[in-house]
């Protein structure tokens, strides 16, 4: 975990600071479900009815913004709303860098970091990417 990243995260929003309390507890969790020891926060994608529905009938997950294992993870519907593409009309960032995510037809999610296993929502896929990154920074494809 990058000390610098954690320190820089300290100045973030109230949501992010609240998330810091959770950051140390879930290390080595798979982040693929509630078994990671983190109590799902309000607005978790499991219950994301606040974000509206897209054309396939899946609820668009609500926005989130938290610090997980020292990394800031953010998710929100993409600019312009759900455009029906396979990104699910949703954008996820880790420390400000885009994590490419994709929504499966059944409403589960994958990312470019965890491409062969599915997660319940964008928050879970972002947390799994944080675990897998082990402090590394996302980069645009070379």
């Amino acid at each position, binding site marked *: 975990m990058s000390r610098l990243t954690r320190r820089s995260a300290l100045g973030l929003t109230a949501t992010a600071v609240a998330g810091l309390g959770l950051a140390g507890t879930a290390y080595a969790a*798979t982040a693929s479900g509630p078994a990671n020891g983190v109590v799902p926060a309000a607005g978790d994608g499991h219950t994301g009815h606040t974000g509206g529905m897209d054309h*396939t009938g899946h609820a668009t997950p609500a926005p989130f913004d938290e610090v997980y294992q020292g990394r800031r993870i953010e998710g929100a519907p993409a600019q312009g709303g759900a455009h*029906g*593409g*396979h990104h699910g009309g949703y954008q996820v960032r880790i420390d400000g860098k885009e994590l*490419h995510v*994709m*929504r*499966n*037809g*059944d409403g589960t999610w994958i990312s*470019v*970091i*965890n*491409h*062969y*296993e*599915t997660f319940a929502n964008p928050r879970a896929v972002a947390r799994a990417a944080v675990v*897998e*990154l*082990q402090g*590394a*920074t*996302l*980069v645009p*494809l*070379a």
Partner: protein
Amino acid sequence: MTVRKNQATLTSDEKKRFVNALLTLKRNGKYDAFVTTHNAFIMSDGDDTDRVGHRSPSFLPWHRRFLIEFEQALQSVDSTVALPYWDWTADRTATSSLWAADFLGGTGRSRDGQVMDGPFASSGGQWAINVRVDGRNYLRRALGAGVPQLPTKAEVDSVLAMTTYDEAPWNSQSTGGFRNHLEGWRGVNLHNRVHVWVGGQMGTGVSPNDPVFWMHHAFVDKLWAQWQERHPASPYLPAAGTANVVDLRETMRPWNNVTPADMLDHKKFYTFDAA
């Protein structure tokens, strides 16, 4: 004629030739072009968009063509080389000879997942990860960490017993077809699980960065051939007129001159050492 062999049976000379051909393609840049191609498809293949390489009926013919092209690149370096296959139902532990220092090297260290031995270890200076999605330029693995068990022979047999090649909606949600169970989005999960079991780059969109990618897919390809043998009356599906996916006689990107029909008989291109 190319004969693809079980990696566990390769002689030390065969291993050395395969590894040397890989390192040569890495050096001249051809290897990384394959990684780029694979990632471009895996990023764009969506359940409700045009899909060619993944989560679609053409998952198997697309990867067959992709592997043939890669094998030909290897053979342009050393004509004696063929793609070995990794039977993960048999060689299913991190102590298998596959992961020894004279072949692919082993699992990564815990601190950063870095593979520390073998010809593809970063310290050897011959295997930089150039096509990457994060800052790490070294090969990583975490054998058995993402999921503890590789698929078993019984699980493979249960999938080979399925009689229909694929079915609507022709994506990761198809519930009754051989293709989606082999790919792993439904059922016992064969192909996807192996990517996760290896971990590191193998779990990402740039999975061909790990040379084991080719040996894994050579085995998936062999399972397709075995399924065809077992179900000679079961055709590739869909036959025609299906939106967003590649029908039997439609061409596949990026080649645009090859169809699933062209890929149905692997024996035109290579054979396997055993049925």
